[in-house]
């Protein structure tokens, strides 16, 4: 009886102390950090034609929205993208420098399991990873047991950021 009451009190305390926000870093703070306090104005990749098709191939579904915002300076771009893991969207901040992924960081994680993907011991594997001609990652990413879908979601976002970064280069090269 006492144990049951204790368990109930723990839950009551949990409900009263639930965090107001489940995110770990805001998009603004992420961009401030990436661009040393002065993030550039955002640019846009419009999801049309080949870009829309390739984006759908990478994710396995179409990306919501008609354009994707990015922040770029000196061939270095930052992206804030979302993909569902098992049932909830994972928000990630990604930085691409040249043709390689500089970093990936989970900004908000809402799944019940798979929290490991938030931490550097997992995300460090993505550092320097590139895209193959077939839009696959050029290195194997070791997964986490019980977090297969969260791992898969971050792999897709890494591929998407690398692909979209290439589109920004094409766009800039085409400019006079």
């Amino acid at each position, binding site marked *: 009886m006492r*144990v*049951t009451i*204790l*368990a*109930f009190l*723990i*839950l009551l305390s*949990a*409900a009263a*102390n*639930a*965090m*107001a*926000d*489940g*995110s*770990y870093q805001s998009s603004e703070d992420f961009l401030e950090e990436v661009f040393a306090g002065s993030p550039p104005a955002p640019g846009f990749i419009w999801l049309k034609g080949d870009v829309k098709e390739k984006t759908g191939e990478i994710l*396995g579904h179409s990306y*919501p*929205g*008609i*354009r994707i915002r990015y922040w770029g300076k000196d061939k270095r771009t930052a992206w804030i993208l979302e993909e*569902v893991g*098992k*049932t*909830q969207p994972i928000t990630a901040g990604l930085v691409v420098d040249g043709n390689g992924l500089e970093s990936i960081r989970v900004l*908000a994680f*809402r799944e*019940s*399991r798979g*929290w*490991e993907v938030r*931490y*550097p*011991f*997992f995300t460090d*594997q993505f550092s320097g990873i590139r895209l193959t001609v077939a839009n696959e990652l050029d290195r*194997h*990413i*070791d*997964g*986490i*047991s*019980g*977090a*297969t879908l969260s791992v*898969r979601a971050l792999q897709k976002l890494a591929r998407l950021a690398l692909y979209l970064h290439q589109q920004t280069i094409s766009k800039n090269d085409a400019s006079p």
Partner: protein
Amino acid sequence: MRRKLLQMVCAGYLLSGSFSALADTPTIEQLWEIIQAQQAEIEALKKQQQETAQQATDADEKAEAAVVAVEEVDAKTAGVASWVDKTTIGGYGELHYQNIEGEDNDLDLHRFVLFFGHEFTDSIRFFSEFEIEHDVAGEGQNGEVEVEQAYVEFDLRENLQAKGGVFLMPVGILNETHEPGTFYGVERNDVENIIVPSTWWEGGAALNGFFGNGVSWDLAITSGLKMETEGDNAFRVRSGRQKVSEATANDLSYIGRLKYTGIPGLELAGTVNYQTDASQGNNDGLGRGILYETHAIYQQGPFGLRALYARWDFNGSAVSAAGDDDQFGWYVEPSYKPWQKVGLYTRYEKLDGARDQDQFDQWEVGANYWPHEDVVLKVDYRSRNVDSNSSGADDFDAFDLGIGYQF
């Protein structure tokens, strides 16, 4: 004289041509008019160009405003229509064909599962798992309708969560993650069926925390087992699950797990579960029970290895007299993926459960084929040797086929 005359004629001709040319040259006034006309034309063109540029700018601004409006509507809709956007549906299922020596062949929709989740806020969410086993449930049917999960979870801190309701016990490899594409073998391994009674769910309250170095912990207070002490299923752990169906809660259960996943591809974990009274009754010869479970998973490139050991220690006169006070099992499962979509495995299991048919060792080999990341086809071959042949406990070889999916 004649030459002079010729010179004069030529000069006259030339002079007359010059005068004629002079007569066609525009006057200064005419030139001024031409310049003014051209200037007006330039001004008109410049104006036209400016208007075109302005129109393009206006069009850009209108397009931008339209896109922003669409995005704002999306954002507002996400906030208002929260039921749709914050409610999630998923599921999995698996169909099995079993060809077991000495038995009728069997085709079974073993599991049809739907997940329903809802995010009340960023830090309070609900999750549930609704399952139909063996296709048809009801009086006299083989199947069951079960709610294996139905809990509310709270994010307390960045690294701390609590939940209350019906949830899966934090033990073993398959109990919490058992979508068909995540494991080898048509049927789940026997150790995590007979010793760890997966799928094992209880009602209660839980806390779990994790650290940046890959260490996590779970603690929970839950409803307990209610094992039979007589009959064919006496002291059989699996039959002791109350499934939170008007479960007797005189004697609760306490469970703790420590897990390390700090190296990608590696998982090391250990669980201890304390059952205050595994029969929920006094003076029946079965008292407290303690489960010790530990496992390791290592996946490096195409190579994988899973190993698990679990042991129950019960006390009580009746369970000791039956020789079921100590029940254990372990397995080792190496695997190899020659291609991304194909995986091969072998597994050796050793079990010592309560019933005669739960005491055996078994070899198994098989393969998974993933035509899509969420769809799997499976095949395996098993060879079981029971410790002592008796009625209902025979050696057998079996051949299994399966198809599974998740979404």
